[in-house]
């Protein structure tokens, strides 16, 4: 397929560096896109993919380096960036509407042109109906059709399949191949290994803003690719991590949490997790593998299509309220938007979740609050000048501890921690890790989500590895090694169940 053309690259990036507020998002990155190739761009969260895309499209300027573009670039974002209330055809031609001789929009022609174009993508929906009435996959296709029709030489697709059903994925991949045949170059950003290996010619791996690998994809074994993304060589298995976790916590008691067959399409499919009191179970997997979704499904924050959650043997209704009452608490990944209320004091932030418990007839007892808050500040070693200090003034690590205290206040049996050490400095990280260890030893059941493999390997007694929304393996004891995890994530030897379902529509 890839007919090599020795022509000039359509995009060439040399030595590009980009810094945001002192943080290097890209450092000295080289990147070349040949005409007509499908180029995979991979890397974990924060590796610099988005920044590189924005540099390519000219949204960001560079601090250093050179960007050469020899063609028009269209970008399709992960979220469908169209206007749901406007009609499909209005979305397609927004900004370049066909006019009649009075200079007014020719609606009949706009509808006809849109219908004609979309038919090529297998979309036969009524183009005069609002875009929002289409399925997400169809909307994605409209976005694609719009982008390509704008006379593009390069189409950048940022996680185009992350919210699609398997059938829709097939249609999209079919369109990608069609574009490829027309000689359009494609930059394909995805975390789904199967898709990458099916359609991409070349790959560039970014890690911490550095291009760690560029080359043909077919020659790169999956496990090699995964280890490039995560940052350690496969050989380098023996790692003495920088984590502060202690020994395993042995737990033989009955499971306090039994989540079975949690399904929320298309994010997670049939995920089961069991945790015993005093046990730390890690959730491993690449970004987008369904880790956060699994935790959210357990606590009832994500509507599920199927699955049950038992706490101490009793079924729990799938609402956050019921889950909280049953003793499940969750520390969300994004402290800024989902947790901390910056302008409230440390005390107010801590007691927030426990207020119903601390109040009688809606009146809270201040002295009770103070007692609890003081106890937690001491126990979690939160560094504050006083409990009345604003949370916004604390460091990231201490903010995280305040959140942890908030949930511990509610006396949970099960604690779900989503990336508890992300974005906090090394010292605070070790403290939070030690704290997790301590809590488990006191009998708390902990689900730990982390992108850092070391943190999971050292901190968890057992690991559930997720891949594309399903459990790819469970590891414990001797299997808790980097190699085993990488193998499970990369799925070296698997036949994919989603593939042969295929689409009845397109395959040509």
């Amino acid at each position, binding site marked *: 397929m890839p007919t090599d053309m020795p022509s000039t690259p359509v995009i060439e990036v040399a030595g590009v560096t980009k810094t945001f507020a002192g943080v290097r998002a890209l450092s000295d990155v080289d990147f070349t896109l040949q005409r007509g190739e499908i180029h995979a761009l991979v890397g974990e969260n924060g590796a610099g993919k988005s920044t590189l895309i924005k540099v390519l499209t000219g949204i960001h300027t560079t601090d250093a380096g050179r960007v050469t573009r020899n063609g028009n670039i269209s970008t399709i974002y992960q979220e469908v960036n169209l206007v749901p209330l*406007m009609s499909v055809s209005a979305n397609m031609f927004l900004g370049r509407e066909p006019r009649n001789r009075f200079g007014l929009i020719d609606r009949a022609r706009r509808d006809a042109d849109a219908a004609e174009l979309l038919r090529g993508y297998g979309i*036969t929906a009524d183009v005069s109906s609002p875009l929002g*009435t289409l399925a997400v996959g169809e909307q994605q296709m409209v976005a694609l059709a719009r982008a390509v029709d704008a006379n593009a030489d390069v189409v950048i697709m940022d996680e185009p399949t992350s919210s699609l059903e398997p059938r829709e994925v097939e249609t999209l991949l079919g369109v990608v191949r069609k574009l490829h045949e027309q000689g359009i170059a494609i930059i394909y950003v995805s975390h789904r290994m199967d898709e990458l290996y099916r359609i991409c010619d070349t790959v560039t791996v970014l890690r911490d803003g550095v291009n760690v690998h560029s080359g043909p994809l077919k020659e790169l074994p999956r496990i090699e690719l995964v280890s490039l993304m995560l940052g350690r060589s496969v050989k380098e298995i023996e790692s003495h991590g920088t984590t502060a976790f202690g020994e395993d916590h042995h737990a033989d008691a009955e499971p306090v949490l039994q989540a079975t067959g949690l399904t929320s399409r298309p994010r997670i499919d049939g995920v089961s997790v069991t945790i015993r009191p005093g046990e730390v179970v890690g959730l491993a997997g690449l970004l987008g593998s369904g880790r956060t979704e699994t935790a959210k499904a357990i606590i009832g924050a994500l509507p599920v299509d199927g699955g049950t959650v038992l706490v101490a043997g009793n079924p729990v209704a799938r609402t956050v309220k019921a889950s909280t009452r049953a003793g499940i608490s969750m520390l969300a990944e994004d402290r800024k938007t989902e947790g901390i209320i910056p302008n409230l004091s440390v005390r107010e932030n801590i007691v927030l979740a426990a207020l119903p418990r601390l109040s009688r007839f809606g009146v809270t007892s201040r002295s009770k609050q103070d007692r609890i808050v003081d106890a937690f500040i001491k126990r979690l070693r939160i560094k504050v000048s006083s409990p009345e200090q604003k949370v916004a003034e604390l460091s990231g690590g201490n903010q995280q501890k305040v959140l942890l205290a908030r949930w511990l206040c509610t006396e949970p049996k099960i604690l779900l921690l989503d990336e508890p050490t992300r974005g906090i400095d090394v010292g605070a990280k070790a403290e939070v890790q030690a704290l997790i260890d301590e809590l488990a030893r006191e009998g708390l059941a902990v689900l730990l989500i982390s992108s850092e493999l070391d943190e999971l390997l050292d901190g968890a007694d057992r690991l559930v590895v997720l891949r594309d929304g399903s459990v790819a393996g469970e590891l414990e004891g001797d299997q808790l090694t980097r190699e085993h995890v990488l193998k499970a994530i990369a799925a070296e030897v698997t036949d994919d169940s989603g593939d042969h379902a295929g689409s009845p529509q397109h395959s040509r």
Partner: protein
Amino acid sequence: MTATLTKTTPTMAARTKVLQRQGAAVALVLVVAVSWLVFPRFGSLDNLRDLALQGSFLAVIAIGMTFVIITGGIDLSVGSVYALGGVLAAWGAQYGFLVALLLPLVVCGLIGLINGLLIARTNMAPFIVTLASLLFARGLLLVITDEGATTYKIASDSAFVELGRGTVFGFGYPIFIAAALALVGGMLLNRTNFGQNVFATGGAEQSAVLLGVPVAKTKVLVYTMSGTLAGLAGALTAAYLQSGVTVIGVGLELDAIAVVVIGGTLLTGGMGTVLGTVIGVGLIKVIQNVINQIGTLDSNYQSVVSGVFLLIVVVLQRILRR
């Protein structure tokens, strides 16, 4: 692949659209039919002419408000700007027709422009910005009328008065002006790139930016339009009343917002029609007219009924969007 175009089943959004658009129209037809039967005076030509004239001033303001609300904004200043426009027109009438007409348009358009620039460029909430200009315009009006003590009269034989009081077959000029503006407004909204930008801005602002829609420019334009139209409505009212009345227009912005929403425009932006707004004006004015005809009923019931209508529409919008 079949060549026929498969129609999608009538979905939520489609149903919402139908009910919103036709809902107000159906209500209007019903109210008119009942009034016609119950009140013999309602159907008289005189009453209908009067009704249309009363509605035309509000309609001119509401057309501008429709654009603002579709972008997801709000313009609270129109009531004050309307009153200011009237006073400026009355004052300007002593210098001739053109001054009387253009002075309010320019000044009120400028207030709208400032509203738009502040909202688009500094990202301040439309509610706050236009609340400030509501106070500003009302204050300015009081300054130039010596706290309302001076009322500028317009000579009854001037050409400007003709603009407000002239008739064709007994129907006042303002009715035709409002109708023409509604026609142009509808055209602008549905058949021009500017109109598409208005929908895109209110429908999904972030996406609109990524799609290359000049969001800031669009916002500036709609507020400028709203201010200008409020000024025009004020000028027409002054011409009709032959003076610049200082106490009118208080709370008029709320009436304008109400008729726009009753007409099916989403208060959250992204969807709406000028025709719906015109129907909304009709509905409110007919109800008002009917309540006036029931001599025994306190005229304050107008607001009660308008309020109930508005509530029903907003609740329906909410339910149907789920």
